[in-house]
C-alpha cells in the first residue's frame, strides 16, 4: 500500500486537531486528555499522543495525517513520527505569546523534514488578533534559515477549502523540490 505521511505540528492550541478533522475522510483517531496547562491555552483537553486521519487518494494509496502533541514533554512522539513523514504543516497561532519564536522552534525541531521533504507554515487566528504580519514571519524565516523559501499562509483550520490549499501547496512544493534536486537523501514513507 502506498502511503504519504504528513505531520501537523505546532504549539498547543494552534488548531492541529481541527485541521486534521477537517481534512480527514475517516473519523479522526484522537488521544485527548484533560489539559493541565489552562493557564497557557484555555481549552479543556489537549492531544497527548497523536491525532490520526487519512485521505484515500486512489485505490489503496493514502495520505496519512498525523497531529503531534504540542507540548515539548511529548517530544519522544515527535521523533517517532518525523522519521516516517514526507512533509509537515506547521500551524502557529497568531495569539501565542511569541508566535515567531514558536515558528522558529518547531522548524528547528523538524528541520530534517524540510531537508528531505517540505514544510508549509499556517498562521492561525490571524483574524482574531493583530499579531505579526506574514512579511514579519517571512523575514524571521530568512534571518534564521537564509535562502529557504517556505510557504507561509494565514489559515483557518475550520475551513476545509483553505486546508486543502495548504496541503496541495505542500505536496506540489515537495515534488518541485525533488524535481530540482533540492532534497537530501530521503527516508520518506
Amino acid at each position: 500500500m502506498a502511503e504519504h505521511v504528513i505531520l501537523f505540528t505546532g504549539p498547543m492550541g494552534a488548531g492541529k486537531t481541527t485541521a486534521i478533522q477537517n481534512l480527514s475522510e475517516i473519523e479522526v483517531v484522537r488521544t485527548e486528555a484533560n489539559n493541565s496547562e489552562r493557564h497557557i491555552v484555555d481549552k479543556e483537553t489537549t492531544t497527548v499522543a497523536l491525532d490520526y486521519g487519512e485521505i484515500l487518494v486512489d485505490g489503496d494509496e493514502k495520505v496519512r495525517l498525523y497531529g503531534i502533541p504540542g507540548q515539548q514533554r511529548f517530544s519522544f512522539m515527535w521523533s517517532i513520527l518525523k522519521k516516517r513523514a514526507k512533509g509537515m504543516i506547521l500551524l502557529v497561532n497568531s495569539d501565542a505569546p511569541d508566535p515567531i519564536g514558536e515558528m522558529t522552534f518547531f522548524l528547528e525541531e523538524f528541520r530534517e523534514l524540510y531537508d528531505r521533504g517540505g514544510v508549509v507554515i499556517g498562521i492561525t487566528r490571524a483574524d482574531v488578533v493583530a499579531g505579526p504580519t506574514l512579511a514579519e514571519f517571512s523575514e524571521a524565516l530568512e534571518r534564521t534559515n537564509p535562502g529557504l523559501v517556505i510557504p507561509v499562509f494565514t489559515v483557518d483550520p475550520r475551513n476545509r477549502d483553505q486546508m486543502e490549499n495548504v496541503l496541495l501547496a505542500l505536496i506540489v512544493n515537495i515534488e518541485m523540490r525533488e524535481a530540482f534536486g533540492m532534497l537530501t537523501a530521503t527516508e520518506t514513507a
Partner: protein
Amino acid sequence: MTIDGNYVAPEPAPQPGSFPVSVGWTQAAIAISSVMVLKTPMNLRMSIEMHGPLLIDFEHHAFAWSTPLEHFPVDAVHTGLETVPGGAGAPPMFELPGQDLDGLLWQIGLNSFDGAPAFWLSPGERYRLTRWPNLTQHSHNMRQVKMIAVLGNAYVSTTELAGYSGVDVGEAQRLVNALSLMRILSRSAEAPAVPMAPETAAAKRQSLFGRLRKRLGRTDG
C-alpha cells in the same frame, strides 16, 4: 511616465509587439509600480467605472474599495487616476487597517499587460520567489500553485516556467507580472538555467499532487 504629485501622465505609446496600455488594469499596474518605487510618500485614488473609487494607501499596505475582490472586474474601465500626498501628517484616505493590498496587487498583476511582460521587466531575466503569496486569501487555480512552486525552488525565465508547469507563456507571464507587482520576486539576468529532472510519462502519472487534486475535485487546471 512622469508623476508630478497630483497627476499621472499618460504612458508612452506601446512598442510594436508590446502590451496595449488600454487593456484592463495595465494603466493601474504601471501607476502602482511607479509609486511603489518612489521615495516620496504617496497614495493613489482610482476611479473605476461602475465600481466606485479605489483607494490605495501604500504606507499601510492597504486599500479600500466597495467592490469585493471575489467580484474583481477584469475588464474595468478606468476613468481617472490621481496621486494623493501621504506620509506623516497626511489625513488617512480611509479607515485603517483597510484590506491587505497584496490581494489587490495579485488581481491587478494577473489582469494587466494582456499576457505580455510588465513594462518594468527586462528581456533575458530569470525570476525566483522571495516569499510565497498568501494563497489562502487570493483566488487562484492549481496551475498557478504549480508555477509558484517552480518559482520557489529555482530561477527560471517565463518560457522555462511555462514549460515546467505545462501552461502557455502568456499565462506564466501573467503570474510573473503579478508576483513582481507584489514585490515578492527577485530578478536576475545572470542566473543560469536550472535543469529540471525530466518528467517522464510514468513520473507524470505518479504525481501525488495531480492525483490528490483530482481526488479533492480541484480540477481547475
